[in-house]
């Protein structure tokens, strides 16, 4: 079933006097429990498309439909709530909060998503997710003492602890070496399957494509290939 649909999404940036159309009418639907990869040349509009889908910026035209809500017509606060409760984010860099421990990063996410769990239930949920990403032994560590791969695994844990329906990842492996990249992608795939999440991953790395169910290729603001 398709949880997420984009209809004729267009995005125009105005740089100085020049208007440039970066997305020229994208149609896309994402399916539950599957990883969809977005590939294409640099500048083809992948990140722009992903952030529009994630409600981090608005489309100039077209519809972004999540569970029957059209994000492109919603108020800021409504979109924020959807992001907090139903979306998870992984970026090229982990972007952890520097002054929180690994455990606190995840508790914060539960807090932001207004989790109904009691305090001790939240803690055991944090433990469980940290086990999933293999970071439970660094629960009390601060981000500054973690390696890049470890940070990224914590970021993944943060992105899924509140049981999002959609996971957005923009080049989640770009800052990691080949071995760690594979680990992270395998982890994203596994989580997608076990938690039945809808996942959209932007990647440059051909090697990562073995972990995905669909590949969408973009070129010059349009989807040129589906597989």
């Amino acid at each position: 079933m398709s949880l997420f649909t984009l209809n004729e999404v267009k995005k125009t940036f105005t740089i100085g006097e020049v208007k440039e159309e970066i997305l020229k009418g994208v149609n896309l639907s994402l399916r539950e429990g599957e990883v969809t990869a977005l590939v294409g040349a640099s500048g083809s509009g992948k990140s722009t498309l992903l952030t529009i889908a994630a409600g981090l910026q608005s489309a100039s035209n077209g519809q972004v439909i999540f569970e029957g809500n059209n994000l492109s017509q919603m108020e800021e606060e409504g979109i924020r709530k959807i992001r907090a409760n139903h979306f998870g984010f992984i970026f090229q860099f982990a972007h952890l909060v520097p002054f929180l421990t690994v455990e606190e990063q995840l508790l914060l996410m539960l807090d932001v998503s207004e989790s109904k769990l009691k305090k001790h239930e939240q803690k055991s949920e944090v433990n469980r997710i940290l086990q999933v990403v293999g970071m439970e032994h660094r629960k009390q560590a601060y981000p500054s003492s973690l390696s890049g791969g470890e940070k990224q695994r914590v970021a993944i844990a943060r992105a899924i602890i509140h049981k999002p329906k959609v996971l957005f990842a923009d080049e989640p492996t770009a800052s990691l070496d080949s071995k760690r990249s594979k680990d992270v992608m395998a982890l994203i795939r596994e989580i997608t399957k076990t938690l039945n999440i809808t996942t959209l991953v932007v990647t440059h790395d051909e090697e990562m494509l073995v972990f995905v169910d669909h590949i969408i290729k973009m070129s010059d603001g349009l989807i040129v290939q589906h597989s």
Partner: protein
Amino acid sequence: MNLAFKEIKRNKVRFLILGSIVFLVSLLTFIISGLANGLSQDNASLIKDLPEGQFYMNDDAEETYTLSRIDSSLQDELLTNYKDATALSIQMGILNNHNGKQQSVVFVASTESKNFKDVKDGEIILDQSMEEKGINVGDTLTNPQFSGEFTVKGFVDQTKFSHAAVAFINIENYKEIYRVNEMQLVFVPKDNSPQEISGLQSFSKHEFLKTIPSFNAEQMTLNMIVWFLVVISGMLFAIFFYMMNVQKIGLFGILKAIGLKTSRLFTIMWTQMIFITITSLALSIAISQGFNLIAPEGMPFSLTIETTMNLSVVFLVIGFIGTTIASLQIKKIEPLQAIQQGEI
């Protein structure tokens, strides 16, 4: 989860530096303001410590009390008509003690009044500072223009005028020394004071203080320094809080992206600002009040709790405004920019 205090705990040094700046600047302001007030006490406590009321001097005195002469019949009329009214004169002069040592004082003579000392013929009551200079009760003092001798009857607390010790003398002795028959001023306490008396110009306490040339110049300078400090510290606060928050724009962008409310980000900054400012102010209030108690005798320093509190409120308001201006940036942060800026 209390993000504001978690951050302070993790970045103690940064917040300690910010706190010490607030502390030092506010302490400096308190001390200068204590000195300003102390100097003004030293300069005019004779007048400042009076109850609120009106001073009257001659119209043709051109606002200079030393030139004022109030006609005796008018004086009598005022003293009978207005309750607690007093006629008085203030003049610089000198006193010699038995071994010829000279002291400058301000002679004050008044008609009978509860606001000034009652002194009998040949007696003198001095400001406490004279006791510290070695004069004792029962000593005799002379003045070149005075035929008799003054016997020291006692001392009064902090009563000064134009930075000199006040010497209360009997009105008749005063008239002899300065060869005058009229008094310079009439003082009527507030509740009874009339607005207009023909031939006389009326001054509130505050207005009268301003007619004393040295007082006015001194206070203007000191007050300017105090307000200058307040403005500078305000700018410093604002700049520091601003810089601290601007450094966190990337982090705030991420927090916004994962769904934190903007209002929560504001709360974080306000909590931190209020915590730091109040802690630092409490410390500098304690130290400046401590200094108030132990300030060396000769040092004119006087800092009331009220002044301290007023300045503290000004500091808090300024800090709040600074933080809020810095925070307006945060409202504008696009989560997207932060994400694309790379590692924070």
